[in-house]
């Protein structure tokens, strides 16, 4: 016999972003810390309400920019002045001015790669499955539902207590989901 599946957390389903935000603030006040919200579009101020740290993506992109710039300078200098110096119209083998366009382009290119793949990586994607997809109403999250999950690993979590707490904050639907 299969083992009884463990519980990932309790889903509370709201019909508006305002109700979701109120529930998040109340849950934080009540001492819950392990929670995640699922919404059809980004909600202003939700990170502050949940106490989430700002995204580190910007710093990663900065590294990408520096790398792109360095590659462009090195590439143009090494190919033009070291590996195969060729006199063309009496121009210097390497100079900064004609190198600017490619320095700019490679800086942007590498930054964009880091921004996109960094975002995907920080979000843990691509991923085949996640407990939220065990929630019977998960399909409406990308439509018009605003969902708060309080995870079972939270110290304050208590199947009935948490359920009553979230019901009191206007959840239309409550459901325990498997991990």
């Amino acid at each position, binding site marked *: 016999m299969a083992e009884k599946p463990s519980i990932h957390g309790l889903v509370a389903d709201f019909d508006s972003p305002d109700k979701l935000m109120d529930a998040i603030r109340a849950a934080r006040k009540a001492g819950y810390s392990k929670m995640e919200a699922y919404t059809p579009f*980004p909600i202003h101020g939700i990170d502050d309400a949940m106490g989430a740290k700002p995204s580190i993506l910007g710093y990663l992109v900065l590294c990408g920019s520096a790398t792109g710039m360095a590659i462009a300078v090195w*590439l143009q200098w090494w190919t033009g002045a070291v590996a195969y110096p060729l006199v063309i119209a009496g121009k210097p083998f390497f100079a900064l001015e004609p190198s600017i366009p490619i320095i700019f382009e490679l800086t942007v290119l590498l930054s964009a790669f880091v921004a996109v793949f960094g975002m995907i990586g920080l979000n843990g994607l691509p991923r085949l499955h996640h407990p939220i997809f065990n929630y019977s109403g998960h399909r409406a999250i990308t439509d018009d539902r605003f969902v708060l999950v309080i995870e079972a690993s939270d110290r304050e979590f208590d199947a009935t207590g948490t359920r009553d707490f979230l019901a009191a904050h206007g959840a239309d639907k409550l459901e325990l989901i498997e991990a």
Partner: protein
Amino acid sequence: MAELSHAQEMKERLTPSLTGGHPSFHDVTEAVSIISEVKTHRNWYIALAITSSITGILGLMLAYLVATGIGVWGNNGPVGWGWDITNFVFWIGIGHAGTLISAILFLFRQKWRTSINRFAEAMTLFAVACAGIYPAVHVGRPWRAYWLFPMPNEFLNMWQNFRSPLLWDVFAVSTYATVSALFWYVGLIPDLATFRDRATTKGRQIAYGIASLGWRGSATHWKNYEKAYMILAGLSTPLVLSVHTIVSFDFAVSILPGWHTTIFPPYFVAGAIFSGFAMVVTLMVIARWIYKVEHLVTMTHLENMNKVILATGTIVGYAYATEFFTAWYSGNPYESYVFFVSRATGPYAWAYWSMISCNVISPQFFWFKKLRTSLPFMFVISIIVNIGMWFERFVIIATSLHRDYLPSSWGYFRPTFVDVLTFFGTFGLFLTLFVFFTRFLPIIAISEVKGMMAQNHHEAHYLDEAVAASEGKQPVGAAH
């Protein structure tokens, strides 16, 4: 009471601005998703049959070109660049409006961009795909086009000339294509997840499931997503300006009269935005009618785009005038010859004055509100503008090249049927990609429109309070 009228005006503008009425979030999902979910209409197959046949002509012409050589085109001394570079610049310019809408208007917080950005970005990608064909095949031996990139290979025992603007162009255009595709895809991920969650067939579930990467819309996802989107917008803004600047360097860095001028970068960028917006209007007028999204893409959107066309068209006209002034004021006889003889009165005068009529005169009608809000009128003007912008590139290329310093090196460019059919074929490719896009992908950015609705709702709420306050309803306690 200035404050009162401002608050009221803002409220009126914000509440119905995006959608005209008060549709719910679900209405937006429904309106956009249904386009791709209904059974494929017979007309779609007809459209695809037509556009893919035209693409087939492009394929045949390119095969003929590759098998025979560049001689099948009309390019010949002294006009070494003909329709190939004209069409390349034409298509790449059209792409620019998409990036302007998706990135620059995003940074300027222009809310009206939200309903049209997905469509405009698609246009960017498809236009760049058409543009990219030309530099690749015009090199003569296209199977060695990869020599343009700094890849070590066993045949070419040397490196590319990084001091040449033509190589800058390779980097600019390939970076632009790559970054535009990435930006577009990032915007698509949440909407692909919406499609996945609504999928009723196994095929759609798997396809959209893979494409949306397992997106689940968590607050953490959105946090990184919004950051990435902002950074990409910030990167794309200078990038789009750099692309047409570098395309203009192809001309401006040479020392040919008519090309060797510092006005080229801003003049090219303005022209690119001008033609791109015209193309968005052309396509949008058709698409909102076919797909019944008039409540999402409203007259306000179209009118705003027409205003941009008016502004950039006027800038372009100013640039034309400046070129003539500089040619005269510089006292350079060769420069004057190009403008006063070759362009205005010479053998290409017909092309020059077509360009002026289409680009400078036709957008001026948009000063009148009645005309810029008329669908048939804007449709016609948007097509005229693109004809004019094609002529601009042709005029720049042909008039500077056709008369060299020695009259023995004079010529006149005549396109061959291969030139004409290849260009015609690129429209087939452009439209075929659009036909696929409108069938399989969300043509309006669903999550962005919803986010904007929520934001407008909030602002309307605050403005209600502002209106109430300025109407003299004193706060409690201050009344007596």
